[in-house]
């Protein structure tokens, strides 16, 4: 506004100056043109100013209410979950999101295509609670020290820092997407499968603004699968994730609400097994998952000692599903497991994807007061294979096997055992995103164990897929299109132009 006002002053002073000169020289008769002139200039200025004022008002009043995200996945709009959370924060909350980079300009084709606009939306819809800045530490080296005076986080270039008061957390842009881990493993490049920018940032905001109600420890140091996605899921349930490495002095902290053994590829040491047994007998909660893939030589004897104390066992064999309507690959190592009726209502699909699963079995035992419930099972036609002399050998036994089971003891100690990593590992979750039915089950399991009622669950967003049929983009169709659109049509217009011009020129 000040800009236009300034213009106005300049013009007005020029006008009045000219008017003074005029009036001193001219007779009184020529006032009409002057009034027309003032009217025209005045009106123009009023219109210019009022256009901008009107738009500022309109923008202020309606920009939010008259914005409609009609895209299928609402990539660049915060969801109602985030919106409600932001609204629930006190008005004086100040959340700074600082991108440690120059503001990305050309977004198309980069991760920022989904990050920058969405962050703008956070800032836009938070009523000033969220501010988004881009500060390049190369230009302002002091910024990192400013953001994190006591160097509690490892902050470096290219990260986003989310800060509220003294609490600080970071995100790297590439972690805001899930990737196809199979493609990664096979071809070595990142193929994004879904957009979890909102989920990541909202979780980060939750982490710096809300006290986590629970604490989960991941036992690490067992060549286990990565669990970043699982941590994200936990934080959306207000559960803080902490790593707990195995060691000779391994001890389970007092504040441990949930212990997770996610996809270990080597067995746990004896001291850890002992600690776990006493943890469970004192009412502790444990989630165990493993499979039969990178660890096909591992029998997990120590782990089974822990599970046996809960009447469960993970067997040393690999399930193959022989029912063709459930099997997903040749050999049946990936298949659809059926959810038991106890849990079916909690997930959106009656069958869940299972791969390279070990069977989970209830053992005969005289231990009292232990209730064992199956979660996921195969069909009657499944068979088991084992490794004999480093060769995978299929057994002759066919039957129904459990892939996941739950056991609760007398002191309310609970263990969930998954014979597959498809419910806990990044390898699976990152490939299929947070909206997957498997993730729903994981979430419900955690919820049930810790009695979590509140949660901030932001769905991952699938990308818009603009692919056309593969064979068309490589076939001769492209040359036809190129000929038509690059030569025939433009050239046709040029020729028409020449013909028309020539024809009329000589009329």
């Amino acid at each position, binding site marked *: 506004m000040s800009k236009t006002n300034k213009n106005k002053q300049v013009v007005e002073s020029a006008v009045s100056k000219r008017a003074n000169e005029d009036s001193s020289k001219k007779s009184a008769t020529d006032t009409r*043109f002057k009034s*027309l*002139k003032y009217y*025209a200039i005045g009106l*123009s200025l009023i*219109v*210019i100013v009022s*256009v901008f004022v*009107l*738009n*500022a008002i*309109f*923008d202020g009043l*309606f*920009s939010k209410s*008259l*914005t*409609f*995200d*009609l*895209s*299928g996945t*609402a*990539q*660049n709009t915060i969801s109602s979950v985030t919106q409600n959370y932001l609204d629930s924060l006190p008005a004086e909350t100040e959340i700074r999101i600082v991108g440690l980079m*120059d*503001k990305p*300009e050309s977004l198309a084709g980069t991760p920022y295509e989904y990050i920058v*606009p969405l962050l703008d939306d956070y800032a836009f819809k938070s009523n000033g609670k969220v*501010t988004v*800045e881009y500060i390049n530490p190369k*230009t*302002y080296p*002091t*910024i990192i020290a*400013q953001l994190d005076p006591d160097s509690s986080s490892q902050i470096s270039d290219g990260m986003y820092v989310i800060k509220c008061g003294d609490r600080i957390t970071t995100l790297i842009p590439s972690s805001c997407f899930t990737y196809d881990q199979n493609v990664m493993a096979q071809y070595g490049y990142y193929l994004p499968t879904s957009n979890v920018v909102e989920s990541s940032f909202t979780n980060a905001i939750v982490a710096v603004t809300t006290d986590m109600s629970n604490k989960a420890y991941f036992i690490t140091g067992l060549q286990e699968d990565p669990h970043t996605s699982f941590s994200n899921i936990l934080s959306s349930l207000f559960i803080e994730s902490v790593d707990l490495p195995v060691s000779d002095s391994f001890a389970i902290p007092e504040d441990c609400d949930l212990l997770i053994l996610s996809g270990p590829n080597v067995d746990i040491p004896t001291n850890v097994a002992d600690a776990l047994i006493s943890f469970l007998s004192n009412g502790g909660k444990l989630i165990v998952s493993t499979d039969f893939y990178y660890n096909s030589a591992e029998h997990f004897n120590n782990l089974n000692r822990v599970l046996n104390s809960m009447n469960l066992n993970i067997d040393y064999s690999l399930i193959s599903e022989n029912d063709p309507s459930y099997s997903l690959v040749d050999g049946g190592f990936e298949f659809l497991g059926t959810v038991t009726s106890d849990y079916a209502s909690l997930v959106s699909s009656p069958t869940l994807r299972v791969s390279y699963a070990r069977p989970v079995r209830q053992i005969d035992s005289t231990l009292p007061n232990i209730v064992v419930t199956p979660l996921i099972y195969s069909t009657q036609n499944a068979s088991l294979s084992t490794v004999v002399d480093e060769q995978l050998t299929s057994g002759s036994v066919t039957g129904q096997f459990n892939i996941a089971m739950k056991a609760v003891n007398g002191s309310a100690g609970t263990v969930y055992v998954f014979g597959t990593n498809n419910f806990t590992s990044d390898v699976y979750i990152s490939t299929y995103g947070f909206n997957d039915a498997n993730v729903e089950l994981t979430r419900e399991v955690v919820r049930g164990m810790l009695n979590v009622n509140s949660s901030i669950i932001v769905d991952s967003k699938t990308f*818009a897929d*603009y*692919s*056309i*049929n*593969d064979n*068309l*983009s490589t076939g001769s*169709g*492209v040359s036809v*299109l*190129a000929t*038509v*659109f*690059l030569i025939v*049509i*433009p050239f046709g*217009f*040029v020729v*028409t*132009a020449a013909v*028309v*011009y020539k024809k*009329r020129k000589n009329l």
Partner: protein
Amino acid sequence: MLAIFKREFSMYFKTASGYIAFAIFAFLSGYIFVSQYASGKVNIASEITNLRSFFVVLIPIVTMGLFSEDKKRGTEVLYYTTPTNIASVVIGKFLSAMALFGIMFINVLVQMFITVCSGGVIDAGTMGAIVVYFFLTALFVALGLFASAVTDSQIIAAIFSFLIILLIQLTSTISALISSTFNSFLSAKVFNIDPEKLSEFCSNVEKFINWFDPLSKTKDFRYGVFSISPLFYCACIAGLFLFLTYQVLEKKRWTQS
């Protein structure tokens, strides 16, 4: 209004300039489309958004002569001395240029049809990009019309509208530049300004400048996020330039030179 529209519109086709504009547009859009098609992914929204950057050339071609030629040839006398309202002259010329852009766009519609036939997707983002395309076209055509009305030289009109459209298209870059210049200048120790406040100030400066930028206001449409107020803004600015064009022409009534 209809008289002016009919003449201007038909002259685009009788003087071949319309066909030249068609040829340029068809080639550019065809190039983007075919290269997208060959890559296996066709996003019409991004094609349309890319096409907008050629406004800088297309708009001057279409609008440069609309009023400047009349002034040069003296044919503007007709508008002033026949029982015609100057406002209807402005609107007639504006609509003729808009109609030309509308017809040009048929090329993209054909491409959309091909995309759908090839199993591609036309989504809300595409529709958003189309809506924005026409609102921005209206804005820039009005601007070009204004440029054409202030001079009697087609070349000057073309350069004038070229520069302004370029400026508008670079606004977000310029605003970032201004903001970072401010930041680096004021962050010198001499000024002793709290860096947090400074960065807030700079981002506000950037936001303020970008508020005027029709492109950054409408950038979310291509992702399927529709919003009324940016469209209202574009329409208002287009209307404003038409109004100013009208005032420039009406100036004859009071000008003394």
